[in-house]
Each structure stands twice: as C-alpha cells, then as structure tokens.
C-alpha cells in the first residue's frame, strides 16, 4: 500500500510546503488542470500526494484516511479532542508562523494582562448583566487557556471571519484570533494582552495513529530518512 501524504492544496502554505520538501530531495507538483487537486511525488518511492484544504487535514488524519499530513499546529489542537491520542507530532517545519492571541480595545488603558481581563469581566457582568463576550473561532484552545489561567465570567461567541470587527459591531468585547503581524488588530483599534499567546502555531508534519500502516514500511523509512525525522515508536507495521 502506498503512503498517503496530505498537504495543503493552495496558496502560500502549499508553495512553502512544496519548497520545504524539495529542499530535502522530495519533489512535489500539482498535475493536470489548475483546478484539479491531483499531484505527484518524485525522489521517494511509494508516496502518494493528497491535496486537501489545510483545515480538513486534521480530520483526515484522525480518521486515518491519510498517513501523514502537513497543517498548522493550531488547527490540529483546535479540531481534535485530546490530539496527542490521535496524531503524532513529527516535526515543526519552520514556516507558516502565526500566534493565537487575545486582544482588547486599545482604549482599555486599564488592561494589560489576563489578570486585568478577569477583573474587568467581573465588573462588566455586574454592570451589563451578561458575561463579557470574546469572539473567536478557536473555541477549544481559548477555553482551555482561560480555564488554565482561572479566568471567569466570560463567554465565547463564534466568529468565523472578520473577527476584529465584532467589537466595533458591539457583538463582542474582546477577540481571540490568529495574527502574524498585528496589522489588522491595529487597524481595528485593538491591542494584544501581554501574557504568553494562547498558542504559537506553525506548519507541522503529523502522522495518523488511526491509519493502516501495513505495507508502508519501506516508503515510511525512506521518507523519514530523507526528511531527518524519527519514526514514532508506536507506529505498527513500520
């Protein structure tokens, strides 16, 4: 059986992934028409390329439909419950850096840290009769982070896009979102809390615990040697 490797199907993340593998002697290319999601791999035998949306790769890994996958470490942590029980984190790849942060209006001159945010949440609830709203699409990561830091009296509201705009639209008081340069935040009159980010994300190579690894031994060993990663111990059949 061939070893299925899932990689992002478009954009900078795809280009960077192709470059990263090429630097290690594995050439990837999309084939056929521009809109057709098919690809080839050269430089290592028995590896099949599967082009997928980066956000679908965690689920495909969890289901074991691909053996290996490249996606953001944030997406794996957000999408998969108890992620270490579902995937092995093989190698951070050093690109696609972005931080998941919590931001509040710049005019909140009384707020620098989570300690302040927690105090403001209590006062806000007393004043307005509902819990301070934090808009995000990273519900699991943000909730775990706030629970670990003992922040109370907040609620998460779902925002799948244009999250920074929710504060101006009065549908949230704070946001938790991915940022790399912070430009969008500044343009929306927001500032980042001073504490460590919720998560520092980067493109990462994962392996699926649920995949059927039988017959993939030669391909996995050859690929691992070329990429310079160790084959996880629990990986059966390799």
């Amino acid at each position, binding site marked *: 059986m061939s070893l299925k490797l899932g990689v992002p199907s478009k954009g900078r993340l795809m280009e960077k992934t192709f470059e990263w593998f090429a630097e290690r002697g594995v050439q990837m290319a999309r084939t056929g028409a521009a809109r057709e999601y098919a690809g080839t791999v050269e430089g290592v035998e028995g590896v099949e390329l599967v082009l997928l949306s980066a956000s679908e790769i965690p689920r495909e890994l969890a289901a074991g439909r691909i053996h290996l996958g490249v996606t953001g470490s944030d997406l794996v942590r957000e999408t998969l419950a108890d992620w270490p*029980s579902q995937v092995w984190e093989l190698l951070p790849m050093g690109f696609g850096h972005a931080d998941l942060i919590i931001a509040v*209006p*710049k*005019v909140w*001159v009384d707020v620098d840290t989570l*300690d302040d945010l927690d105090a403001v949440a209590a006062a806000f609830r007393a004043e307005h009769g509902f819990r301070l709203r934090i808009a995000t699409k990273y519900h699991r990561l943000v*909730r775990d982070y706030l*629970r670990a830091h003992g922040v*109370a009296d907040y609620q*998460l509201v779902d925002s799948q896009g244009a999250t920074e705009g929710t504060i101006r639209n009065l549908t949230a008081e704070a946001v938790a979102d991915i940022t790399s340069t912070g430009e969008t935040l500044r343009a929306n009159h927001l500032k980042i809390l001073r504490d460590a980010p919720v998560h520092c994300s980067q493109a990462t190579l994962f392996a699926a615990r649920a995949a059927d690894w039988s017959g993939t031994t030669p391909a996995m060993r050859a690929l691992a040697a070329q990429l310079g990663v160790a084959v996880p111990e629990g990986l059966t059949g390799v």
Partner: protein
Amino acid sequence: MTGAEALAATLLTEMQAAGAVPVAADILQPAETLLDLYGEDIRARAYVTHDPVLGEMMLRPDFTVPVVQAHMRGGAEPARYCYAGPVFRKQDGRRAREYLQVGYELFARDDPARADAEVFALFSRLLEGKELRPVTGDIGILKAAVSGLETSIARKSALMRHIWHPKRFRALLERMGGQGPLAEARAELVSNLRAARAEALIAEAGQMVGLRSADEIGARIATLLRDAEAPPIPREQVQAVERLLSLAAPARAALGGMRAQGWAALAPALAPALDRLEARLEALDAAGIDTAHLPFEASFGRITMEYYDGFVFGFLPAREDLPPVATGGRYDALTAVLGQGQAIPAVGGVIRPALLEALT
C-alpha cells in the same frame, strides 16, 4: 436491568426509607441557567444541543439544579428529595460519558450541623463495606479566612470569587501580598495610569470602540489607583491562608490544630466557622461517625464541586485514577442564585452506582 440499574433502584429505596420523596427532572435543560452558574467551562463538560424554538439546551450534567428549581417553585419545608437517572458529561479517554447518578438532597432551615451529619451518615451507611476512603472538608472555613484578611473589601471579593480556582486564588493572594509576577505587572500598569488623568489617557489611546464605556474604564482606573495605595496583605496572614489550604488531618485533630494555631488576625474571623465545624463534628459523632479518624482536608472540594460553599465530602476509591464514587456538600448560595430572592439552606450528595458495582 443492568447491575448498576439494580443497585440504583436499591439505593433509591433506601433513600425513600430515610424519608426522601422521589423526584424526576428533564434530561434537556435550558443551557442559559447552567452557563450563568458555571461559566463557559461547563461547555467543555456538558453536551450542548440546539432547539429551534427554545435555543441552546444541555443534556443534564447533574440533578442538583433542576431539583433546587423544583423545590423553589413550591416545596414544603423541611424537604428531602431523592432521584436516580442518567447524567451526561464530556470526558477524555475511555471514561463513561453517560452514567447513572443516585442523589439525596435535604432542604432545612434549622440546625445545619444536624442536616450535614444526616446526609453524610446516610451516605456512609449506604456505602458501608466497600473499599472507599471518606474525605471531608469545609469551604466555609476558607471563606471565613478570606473575610478575616486585613485588606479592602474589593480584594476580599476578588479572592472569594476565585476560591474554586486554586491556581488563580494563589496568584491573586501573592499579588495582594505584594509578591510575584502579577504584582510587577500591576505596579507597571499603575505607574502608567498615574501619568495623566483618566480622560486624557483614554483620549490618547485612540478611538473608542465596543460596549465597555469610558465611564467603566475610568471607574476601574480609580479602583486600581485606590488599591495601589492600600498596604499589602500582611505576610503572616498570607502564610496563614497558605498553611490552612494545605491542612490535612483527622477531623478532630484538624479542628484542634486550627483552634491552636496562632493565626494572627485571622483568628476572630475563623472562630464562628470553627464553631460550625465543631457543631458538625458533634452531630456526626451523635450519628455514629468516628470523627477522631474521619479525614479532613481543608482544600477538598475546591475544584470538582464549584457550587459547594460549606461542608463538603467525598468517598474515593483506592485507585487514584478513578473518579469519586460519591460526592456531596452544602450549597446554600446556589439556592439564593436560583431562587431569585429566596434562599434555603441545602445539603446533598450523589452516588455513581456503576463505580460502586465495579468495586465488588
């Protein structure tokens, strides 16, 4: 009928024999009430679903809330209720998501010590002969210790709010004692806020966005500046609270120890709470519990049972990776929150029959 169901039926019969009226509760509960009580964390623990008309609903994570609500709508006093049925909790790994709970709740205005003892003695009898370690605690003593600190009301209420979040509580206490990284961050913030008047600082920061108004920001700035003038909580008091949090001893010895400790200015505030503990131990003795050997841990109940505010107890299996077979405690404040102005002292507990069955 499974073994656990049969065991649940037996336990329920015993509770009825002890004077409890069996009650039922809907499996689908309005999410809003539970979210307001427990905060966002409950979403990580309870299953949320959506009704097209009623909005967000939760599969009941426990019976306490609906039973209290039913009682507040017009129960007689004093009242004893019992129930049995499945509850639903999200879990990691292989732990059961749906499991039976059998519970007993007592609402009574008189003699809280005797009510506490009645519930604990009943659970103790129902679980007799099983290899379980009983543990007791008292959130009321922690609250009394906080109220006895020599510091502002604002600081005390911040600590009270986080009594159930041990990590945050410790960090706050440290900051209020003038120590640690939070104190440094706070000092920097305050020095920035002293640089100009609140209105000027806010105007300088840029455009006003969001629901939180300039008045609210100004009010917190005033609070922060006032707080910065207040002296730190005396070192010996911070240490006394930390010693209290780590106290674990047989109940009688724990009481004696807490009375004997030279806990500086905490002592007068602690005295009434310790009197209540003593009255409870008397009542437990009278109910046939050996309080000379009953384990007492001052921090017990601070994480898993957020709404308990007085006596707390658990019956734990020998294996530490297994959840408690039974838990319970006093939750007077919860009845006030759910009762919209009314309140009644309440104490109760639950048993998980499937875990109990696995022991035998």
